[in-house]
C-alpha cells in the first residue's frame, strides 16, 4: 500500500472541491473494494476524500412517484428499506444476493456502482492487465477466464462488472445523479457503465471529479412479477457466474412490458432492450422464454474456461423469466434466488 493523505468531506461541494485540489485523489465510501485494491497496490490514490458521512444517506419519495436512493445509504439500509422491499423487490433480492451482511453494512450505494472488476489478473500486479495498466495486455484472454465476460467484450478486455445490485438497477433503469466541478447532471443508468472497447481502464462515463449523489428510481418497480437469479460457485459470498434480473408487467398470461438484465457476463450490467421488445405482447410460455434467451446470447463469445456461461446464461434467462411470470419470488430476509 502506498502512502496517502485523507480528509473527510462535510458536504458535496466540499468533497468536490477537496478532490479537485488533490492530484491522483479518489472518493471513498464504505471502502469495501477500494481499500483492498490499495493493499494490493492495484490502486494507488495519493489522497482519499471520505464521502461516507455526507448527508446523502436518505431514501425518500420523489415527486414523480419514484424513489431516491441516497448515494451514501448503505446497501443494507437500501435492501431493508420498506419502500424498496414493497415497490422494488428485485433490488432487495439482488442486494441480498451479494457479498455478506458485514460488507453490505459498510458498502454504499454510490460505491456499489464504482466497484471494480474481480478478474483474477486485474487483482494480481504480477500479471499484465489492460484495465489496470493500459497497453500491458489482457492475461484473461488465453488464460483462466471462468469469471470473465461473454457479451460486449473486446480484444483488450473481457472483464465483468461484479455487482449484483447494479443488475437489478439496470432492469429498473434509474437515473444516476452526479455532482462535479462543472455542476450537477443526471446520467441514465444504461449509460453509466461502459463497454471496454480499447479503453478498458475506464469503467464508467463519469468525468474527472464527479461524485454520485443519488440513484433516482422511476415509479415502475415490477413488484408483482420479478426475479433475481444468481448462479455461482458456492451458495453465498461468491460473485455471480451469471445472474439475471427480470421485471415483467402482465395482463393475464400476456407480457405487456419487460425488463431483462444480466450480471457476470459483461463489462457493464447487461440490459438487453431488444430482448425486452421481443417479450412485449408475447404469452409467458417456455417457447417465448427460450426464444428470447437464445436472442440474448446469440452474439456471446466464450474464451475457453468461460464457454459454459453462454449456455448457462441461456438457461438462467429462461428460468428467471419463468419465475417472474409466475410471481414466485418475494422480498425477504434471505436471498433464496429461486434456485
Amino acid at each position, binding site marked *: 500500500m502506498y502512502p496517502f493523505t485523507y480528509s473527510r468531506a462535510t458536504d458535496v461541494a466540499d468533497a468536490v472541491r477537496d478532490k479537485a485540489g488533490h492530484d491522483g485523489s479518489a472518493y471513498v465510501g464504505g471502502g469495501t473494494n477500494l481499500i483492498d485494491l490499495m493493499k494490493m497496490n492495484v490502486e494507488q490514490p495519493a489522497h482519499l476524500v471520505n464521502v461516507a458521512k455526507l448527508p446523502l444517506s436518505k431514501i425518500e419519495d420523489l415527486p414523480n412517484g419514484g424513489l431516491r436512493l441516497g448515494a451514501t445509504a448503505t446497501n443494507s439500509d437500501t435492501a431493508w428499506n420498506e419502500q424498496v422491499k414493497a415497490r422494488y423487490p428485485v433490488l432487495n433480492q439482488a442486494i441480498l444476493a451479494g457479498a455478506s451482511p458485514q460488507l453490505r453494512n459498510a458498502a454504499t450505494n454510490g460505491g456499489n456502482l464504482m466497484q471494480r472488476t474481480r478478474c*483474477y489478473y486485474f487483482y494480481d500486479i*504480477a*500479471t499484465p492487465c489492460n484495465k489496470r495498466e493500459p497497453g500491458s495486455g489482457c*492475461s484473461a484472454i488465453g*488464460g*483462466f477466464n471462468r469469471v470473465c465476460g461473454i457479451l460486449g467484450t473486446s480484444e483488450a478486455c473481457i472483464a465483468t462488472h461484479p455487482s449484483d445490485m447494479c443488475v437489478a438497477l439496470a432492469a429498473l433503469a434509474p437515473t444516476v445523479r452526479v455532482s462535479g466541478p462543472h455542476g450537477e447532471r443526471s446520467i441514465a443508468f444504461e449509460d453509466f457503465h461502459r463497454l471496454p472497447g480499447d479503453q478498458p481502464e475506464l469503467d464508467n462515463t463519469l468525468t474527472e471529479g464527479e461524485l454520485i449523489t443519488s440513484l433516482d428510481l422511476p415509479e415502475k418497480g415490477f413488484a408483482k412479477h420479478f426475479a433475481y437469479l444468481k*448462479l455461482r*460457485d*458456492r451458495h453465498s459470498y461468491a460473485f455471480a457466474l451469471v445472474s439475471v434480473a427480470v421485471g415483467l408487467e402482465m395482463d393475464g398470461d400476456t407480457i405487456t412490458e419487460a425488463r431483462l438484465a444480466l450480471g457476470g457476463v459483461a463489462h457493464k450490467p447487461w440490459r438487453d432492450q431488444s430482448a425486452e421488445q421481443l417479450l412485449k405482447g408475447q404469452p409467458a410460455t417456455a417457447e417465448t422464454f427460450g426464444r428470447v434467451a437464445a436472442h440474448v446470447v446469440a452474439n456471446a463469445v466464450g474464451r475457453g474456461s468461460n464457454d459454459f456461461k453462454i449456455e*448457462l446464461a441461456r438457461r438462467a434467462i429462461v428460468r428467471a423469466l419463468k419465475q417472474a411470470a409466475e410471481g414466485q419470488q418475494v422480498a425477504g430476509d434471505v436471498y433464496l434466488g429461486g434456485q
Partner: protein
Amino acid sequence: MTQTNHIGKAPNRVDGPLKVAGAAHYSGEFNVPDLAYGYVVSSPIAKGKILKIHADEVRALPGVLEVFSHENVPHLAWLDKSYKDQIAPGGSPFRPLHAPDITFNQQPIALVVADTFELARYAAALLRIDYEQEAHETNLEAKRTEGFVPGKGKAGFQPPPPPRGNPDKALANATHSIEAEYAHGAQHHNPMELFTTTVEWRGDGKITAYDKTQGVFNVQNYLTSVFGLKKEDCRVVNQFMGGGFGAGLRPQYSVFMAVLASLELKRSVRVTLTRQQMFSIGHRPNTLQLLKMGTNPDGTLASLQHHALHETSQFEDYTENIVNWSGMLYQCENVKLGYELAKLDIYSPQDMRAPGAASGNVGLEVAMDEMAYAAGLDPLEFRLRNYADRDQNVDKPFSSKKLRECYQQAAAKFGWETRSQEPRSMRANGKLVGMGMGGGVWDAAQKKSAAKAIISADGKLTVRSGTGENGTGTYTIMTQIAAETLGLPLEAVTFELGDTDQPEAPIQGGSWTAASVGTAVKDACDALGEKILKLAQKPADSPLKGAKYDDVEFVNGQLRLRLDHDQAVVLRDVLQASGETQLEADSSAQPNMAKQQPYSLHSHNVAFAEVEVDEDLGTIKVTRVVSAVAAGRILNQKTARSQVLGSVVWGLGMALMEETIMDHKFGRYVNHNFAEYHIPVNADIPHIDVIFVHEDDDIVNPLGVKGIGEVGMLGVTAAIANAVFHATGKRVRDLPILLDKLL
C-alpha cells in the same frame, strides 16, 4: 460413575472463555517492546534468476531498517540436512534467500524490515528487482509420462506394498470390470490465521519465537541447526493456533525470515504473510489416479488396481500415501498399487488434512460406486460383500474394526433403504435427488511423547507437554485425562502446551495427538499418583497401608481402595500433611511395540450424503450428511463431534468447490485469495449427523483412542460425488464438481 469421570463426556472447551474474551494470544499478538516489522517480497515469475535487487533505493527510506536477500544474507548452515525438519521429504529443502535462483512462483526473495508494518509493506512495493526469466513447466498433464517412483525419504511415507495375486489376469477374467481416471487440482489449507512469527530479542543472541506452528520442537530444531543457535537460547512458543490442517507441520519461511532479521538487527521482529503468500507454503498436490476393478459373479472383487501420479517441486520429492489404503479397505486377492511423482516448477506440496488418503479415497470410493453399478449391486451391499476382516497389505488382523457397525448405523440414520438404485429415479422440490456413500480408513498412530505433572499442596494440578492446539480441543481432552486420572474436578487442572521449555511432544499431526500426548499425560499423572500414594501411606494409621497403586483409585478428590471405598483419604489432606509445597512427576510414553506389532491399527468411517441437483442450471445443494466414525474411544463427545463436522465441511469443499487454479502461462496461481478460492460457507452446509461407533481397543494405546482429526473427512467427498451421479446419471471424475460440469 463419579463426578471426576470426565473421559467420554462432553465438557465445553476449557480454553473457550479465553478465546471469546480475546485473552488467548496468537503468534501475531505478542506485542513486545521495540518491535520491527518484516514484509516478504515474493517472486512474480516461476523460474529464472535474480540479476539485481535495487535494495539501496529502499534502504534510503527513513524508517526502513534493512532489506534482506541472497545478496546480503549472512553465512548460514550449508548442508541440506541442517534445513531438514522432522517431516521433510527426500531431496533438498527450500532455503529462503539462499541463492539468486527462482524455482517457483511466489518464492520469497527478499524481506524488507522497517519500524512499522505499513512502511515495510510500502517499501516492499517500491523494491525494484531485475530478473532473467526462464521457461517453466507447471502443468502435470505435460508430465504424464515422466512420473518416477520416489524413495522412502519422508517420515510416515510407506511405498505401496508389492502386487499380490495376479491382478491383470483376474481383471481380464472378471465378470464385470471398470477402468476410469480421476483427477483433482491443487488445494490449499487456508487456515484463517495467517502464518506469523513474532521473534522477541532477549539480548545476547537469545530469542523467543512466537511462531504459528503445529510443532514447536520441530521449529526449534530447524532454527538451531540453520542459525547455529543453542537450544536454551532459542525458545519457540505457540499456545493457540487459528487453524493448521497440516500447513504448520513444517517450519515456514515466515519463521526463517523473522529469526534472520532479529538476529541480524538484534531487535524483536514480526513477519506476517499475506493471504496471497499463504498460497506459497505448500498444498495438496494436483493428482491423477487410474483405477481398474473387476468383480466375480458373486459380487466380490476379483481385481483392484490403483495408480496415482502427483506433482512435486524440482527440489523435493514430496510423498503421501495415496494408493495403499486401496489394498486394505476391501478384501481382494489380486491387487496392484502404483505411485509416482512428477517434478514441476512449483513449491513442494505439503501434508494437508488426511494427506494421501483424502486423494486416494476419492479415486477408490468413486470407482467402487462405478463398480457397484457395473455389477448391478447396491453400493452399500457391494461394500459389505467385500468387507475386509484382515489388513491384506500386511496380512494382519485389525486391532479393532467396527466399520460394519458404522455402515449399519449410518445407513439406518440416513434412510439408505429409501434409495432407489437407478440414477435419475428420485426427485423432490422440482430437483433431481441423489444419495451416495463412501467410506475410508486412516492410521491409528502413537508417537513418543513426554509430559510433566505438578500438584500443589492445595490440590491444584498443572500438566505440561509441548504439543500443539490448532483448535481441535487438545487443552480440553488433556485436562479431562489428567483430572480423571487424579480424581479432580476439571477446574482444579491446568494443561499447558506449545512451549519448547516443556517436555517434548511430537508435531501435532497425523491424528496422533490424543493417543500420544494423552498417554504421556496419563502416565505423568499416574507417576504422580504413585508418589501421592506413598505419602498417604506414611502415617501409621493410614487406611491405605500395604496397598499397591493398582489397588487404589483417585475419585472425587479422594484416594481410596478400589474394593473398599470406605478406606479413603482426602487428597488435599495428604498433600498438606506431607509438608511439601508441591509434588511433580515426569513421563515419557512410547507405543507398546510388542503389543501392537501383531496387529494393523486403523480408524474407519463412512459417510452418506444426499444432494439435490437443479437439472437445468447444474446447481448442487447437499441436503444431508450422516457420518459414522469408528475411532476407538472418544474422549470428548463435543470436541470430537466438532472435529467430524469440520471434516465433513472439508470433504464437501473438496467435492464441490476447492481448487487452486494455476495459469500455466505464468506458472502462477491466479485465485490466490479468499474471494476466488472457494471454501464452503454456512449456506453450503446442510444438517450433519455424527455417529461414533465405540471400539474397545487396548492394543492401540492404554487410553484406547485412535484419533479423529482426519478420518472424518474420508468418504465424504466420494459420497457427494456418488450422490451427484445417482441424481443426474453423470459421472464427474475431475473434482471439484462445479455446475458447468453438469450442464
